[in-house]
């Protein structure tokens, strides 16, 4: 039963490593912003999954706050790329 959740956590960690490699490599700033966006979404899913694994309800609140903050950050970065703030 728990083995499927462990497999999912391994897949998610490999995915976050790949996105982080793009974050390091990315030629332009927009590539890095995209990689950061994907990293934050992967982080939300991972937080919810870890919350289920540890049976802690507070991880869900953490995921919600992280979603809101990541969205605002990406919008600000997009405005900065388009023209100066």
């Amino acid at each position, binding site marked *: 039963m728990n083995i499927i959740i462990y497999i999912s956590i391994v*897949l998610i960690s490999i995915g976050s490593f*790949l996105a982080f490699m793009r974050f390091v490599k990315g030629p332009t700033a927009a590539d890095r912003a995209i990689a950061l966006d994907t990293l934050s979404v992967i982080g939300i*899913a991972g937080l919810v999954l870890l*919350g289920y694994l540890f049976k802690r*309800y507070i991880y869900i609140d953490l995921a919600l706050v992280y979603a809101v903050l990541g969205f605002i950050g990406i*919008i600000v970065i997009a405005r900065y790329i*388009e023209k100066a703030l």
Partner: protein
Amino acid sequence: MDTLNNILTYLGLGFVLLGSIFLFLGALGIYRMPDLYNRLQAGTKASTLGAMSVVLGVGLMQPSWMIKLIVIILFIGISNPLSSHALARASYRRGIRPFFKKKIDAYEQEVEREKQQRKKNQIKVEKVKEVAD
């Protein structure tokens, strides 16, 4: 009651596995695609579906957490396409063009037209200032 719980648990495990596979594929697309817009496409679509599916699966396994998890699902579904749209628009206006050449690029014409409109408006403002002086 026990069989219902078992069914919900197995359904939730399936959703979690499916979602994590989609998250992995999205991140692979982010790493492998040749171009900014391709990366945006792969990253946003696959990772939105994957995150929604993982959160829904956890909600099926633990039904007392369902309300807040539905709020998270709705927020991901609204915010992720919005942020990717803003990024694509910003990088196009910044001057990053797609890797493969296309025959028709309608948005480029619109951007050019807006630039010319802005120039005309500036000239008008300068003329008005001269008259005022």
